[in-house]
């Protein structure tokens, strides 16, 4: 286990807020002051405000793919749990972990995101996507 890189940690986490989402709910991650410290790098963590969770996140493409997998194939890793939104989120998160693990091991993913251009089939993503507001603006601008 190598030591965490202190230099530029905040910048790395900021970049992650741009490229990743919460693996449970798919919403954007924010940088949040978790603990009081006189060392800036030690104060902050990635956080999902919706889930109230310290969360490292996954690439958006992976989240949408996992979400779609659960919905279309009715995959259930947690058969003993009651069917509810929480269980659905946990299933999506589980698939996110598996896809991330595989992409990482195949050399398709690193800290900065995907190492290869993606050619995602549009119909593999759910019709209803959760987009952070800034992306909606960006997509609108692109459409003009």
């Amino acid at each position, binding site marked *: *286990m190598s030591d*965490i890189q202190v230099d530029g940690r905040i910048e790395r986490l900021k970049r992650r807020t741009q490229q990743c989402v919460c693996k449970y709910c798919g919403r954007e991650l924010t940088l949040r002051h978790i603990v009081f410290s006189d060392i800036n*790098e*030690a104060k902050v963590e990635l956080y999902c405000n919706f889930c*109230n969770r310290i969360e490292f996140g996954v690439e958006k493409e992976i989240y949408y793919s996992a979400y779609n997998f659960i919905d279309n194939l009715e995959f259930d890793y947690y058969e003993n749990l009651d069917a509810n939104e929480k269980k659905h989120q946990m299933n999506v998160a589980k698939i996110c972990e598996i896809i991330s693990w595989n992409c990482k091991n195949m050399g398709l993913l690193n*800290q900065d995101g995907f190492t290869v251009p993606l050619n995602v089939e549009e119909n593999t993503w759910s019709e209803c996507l959760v987009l952070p507001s800034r992306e909606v603006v960006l997509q609108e601008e692109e459409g003009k």
Partner: protein
Amino acid sequence: MLEPIISIENLSCKSGNRYILHNINWQVNDGEHWLVFGKNGCGKTTLLSCIAGFKPVSSGMVKVLGETYTAENIFSLRKKVGWVSSSFFDNYFKNESALQIVLSGLFGTFNIDYDVRDQDVRTAKALLRELHMEYKMKQPFYMMSKGERQNVLIARALISKPKILLLDEPGTGLDIEAREYMMTSVATLAEQSKVTIIYVTHYPEEIQPFMNKAMLLQNGRIYKKGDLEDVIRQETLSMFFDRQVQIRKQENGRLQFMLEMKANALQLS
């Protein structure tokens, strides 16, 4: 002369105008295992959080393994200090899973990082299994019992193979079997590894033979510190508690404190 494992000089911590810790001077040397004893609110958790690198000091100096905490070393140094404190971590962990929390110990942060290896996950799971938490790995922290949370934090502290183990009331909330298991594990660690243990407790029956030093903390100040047998004495404890204390040794060698106490709460109601 070897450098102390922990060296604290004139440490003070304030919250507003109130001193939580005041002018603490303390050295922990190689081969020492300390018992820290004190009433609720005397500053024990604050003292440990300063040593663990999770709380800045108002004045004074804390050196851990010869280093003070800086921006360059904070994460690597935190990893060398295993810290079990539900009074601290209960404030930060809520919806995070047991597995994520254990893995965060590898990074000296509250979160995992990109660099989690398969071996790390296997080790985290093995630790949780060892602590009878195999069915709770994905469960959110807030949904666990106090004892289960304590076990998650013990696994978090051990995963980075620390040189120092800070145990802040580790027996609180554990059932009798889990507490005995925890105490045996800590004693085994003390005897078979080179880890230095600082053990904070309210319970005299948790005082174990491997502990060779003791500190009494009162209102943020050191009341007395030294060899355990010089500190944990009837006269000292009677003055410390400001009431008559009798120390009894039970058949299993564990200590029991008997405090002379009169309660008049019923008469007040």
